[in-house]
């Protein structure tokens, strides 16, 4: 910008005047551009950069039973990985991460299959735009109530004397109630899938909606069967949506503590749960250190995923 204004050193008075006004105009335009970007930048700073920086700072502070001491220490991080060098027996942190990763993988797989199927149906089998919108609204209906309520409503359904067990016993299919329905890995994954599938549906549908229908015809013309078209045309072109949906689901599951708590009967460990427990014990620096480690882990997963699919190119 400045390069354009500066070389115009004027030979005559009039030219010099016009140059000055030009520079002034450009400066004004630049100020205006900053002003336009300011509100978003401010929001970003206050709600993202500052909290993150604070978390990072606090994670290096010390603490005792009743106060936080602003003195630099790496003890919090040492505590996180305590005993992890012992290869024979996995430490608490590694076991917690493995448990969370297991939920993450199971939830991701289920939401991907369900989300892809639903998105495919809405994008390719529902002809009218109005109907597509209506079906989308139906998908969002569960979001009209809060997360916790949606989770808790599983309890009367899955409990030992819940609807499912009662029905199965009433039908004579089982003699004793199935114990593993509630407060188990199964119920946690079920709730996760219930809560997060819509985050998979929307981006995948968005990708699919942009697939030119003539490509499907071209595949048919080339002798492809339905499955061949799905695998060779639809899936590759829906990849950006799959990647975005996966990022949503993985970050949500990795950081969750409510679902694992409620649906796991407070018996199943998760990384989020660890942080929450430490926070309620006012061990804020320890919680912050755990949060930073979790952030690093999630970011690594996302980087790995963007390595597989160049998102910026696809968008």
């Amino acid at each position, binding site marked *: 910008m400045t390069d354009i204004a500066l070389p115009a050193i004027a030979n005559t008075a009039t030219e010099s005047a016009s140059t000055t006004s030009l520079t002034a105009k450009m400066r004004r335009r630049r100020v205006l551009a900053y002003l336009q970007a300011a509100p978003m930048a401010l929001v970003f700073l206050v709600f993202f950069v500052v909290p993150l920086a604070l978390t990072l700072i606090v994670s290096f502070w010390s603490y005792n039973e009743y106060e936080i001491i602003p003195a630099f220490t790496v003890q919090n991080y040492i505590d996180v990985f305590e005993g992890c060098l012992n290869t024979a027996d996995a430490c608490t942190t590694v076991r917690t991460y493995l448990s969370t990763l297991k939920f993450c993988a199971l939830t991701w797989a289920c939401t991907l299959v369900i989300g892809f199927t639903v998105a495919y149906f809405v994008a390719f089998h529902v002809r009218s735009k109005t109907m597509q919108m209506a079906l989308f609204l139906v998908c969002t209906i569960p979001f009209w109530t809060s997360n916790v309520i949606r989770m808790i409503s599983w309890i009367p359904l899955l409990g030992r004397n819940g609807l499912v067990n009662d029905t199965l016993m009433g039908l004579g299919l089982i003699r004793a109630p199935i114990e593993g329905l509630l407060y188990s890995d199964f119920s946690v994954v079920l709730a996760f899938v219930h809560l997060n599938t819509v985050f998979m549906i929307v981006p995948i549908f968005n990708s699919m909606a942009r697939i*030119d229908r*003539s*490509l499907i*015809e*071209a*595949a*048919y*013309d*080339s*002798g*492809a*069967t339905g499955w*061949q078209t799905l695998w*060779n*045309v639809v899936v*590759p*072109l829906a990849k950006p949506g799959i990647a975005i949906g996966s990022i949503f689901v993985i970050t949500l599951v990795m950081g969750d503590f409510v679902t694992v708590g409620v649906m796991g009967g407070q018996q199943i460990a998760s990384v989020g749960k660890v942080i929450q427990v430490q926070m309620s014990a006012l061990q804020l620096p320890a919680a912050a250190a755990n949060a930073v480690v979790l952030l690093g882990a999630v970011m690594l997963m996302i980087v790995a995923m963007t390595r597989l699919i160049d998102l910026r190119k696809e968008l």
Partner: protein
Amino acid sequence: MDVELICLTKRYGNTVAVDGIDLKVRSGAYCCLLGPSGCGKTTTLRMIGGHETVSGGDVVIGPRAVGDATPAERGTAMMFQSYALFPHLNCRDNVAFSLKMRGVAKAERRAKALAMLDLVQMAHLAERLPAQLSGGQQQRVALARALVTGPKVLLLDEPLSALDPFLRVRMRTELKRLQAELGITFIHVTHSQEEAMALSDIVVVMNGGRIEQAAAPRDVFERPATAFVARFIGGHNIIRLPDATEVAVRADRMRLGPDAGPEAVPARVVSVEYQGTSVHVGFEADGVGGTGATPLTAVIDDAAYAGHPLALGQTVPLGWDADAAHRLGA
């Protein structure tokens, strides 16, 4: 292979898109389906290719009626208007796609695809993605993809309409060359009469779901069957005679002034367009049909015009060669 349409009909609800048409295209012919948008030409093409169900009648390709057969079973291949190249595959894999679907081994299908790209002079860009190609290049790849399985009939849906005028003429020549080289039947949908004239062995002029005329281009131009055909292919004046019948006269066979002959009518010059080798002069004449939006046109050799220039608003006698008048059907 011969392509025959027998009373072919397509209905969408109560609308009839294609209204019981009969057509026979002999093997190895270049056939153009010509007509304005909405005349049913693309629907007809899609029914031949198996991309649209048939409401009534039959499509016969070679010895048998194809019914609900898939495009591959019919031996047809379609080149789509937007080319429909797979954006995630490079040129070679696009061309090899149908071979892959048939389970041809990788090395073999790649070799075949490259050979086909070579035929359309695109082998040097085999690794490029469609987005990295120009419109003309994409079209060549689409052509190679359609031809790679050795179809008996190639269906082209307005293949040249997305290209700029220069490229269009070049690709036109190339299509004709390929068709002659491969000796397969081409059925080409277009709304450009110029394209149809330049390419086809048989022109099928369609309107409102029906065939107005199906004949060699010269026959269509010399003897248009209906007023619609004469108007659509252009270069004709439709003149209403005193006995209420209509004749079509080629614009280059109109005569002016002293040459106009005994049946000449007084006509007023409403437009003069210089076209290089010729001059197009528009006339309004009472009683013979050239009025308002569709004036009569006379195409005059540029040298002859320079000898007797005309001014707008001038009235001159306008006539035509009697043997050039062709009586029109309903």
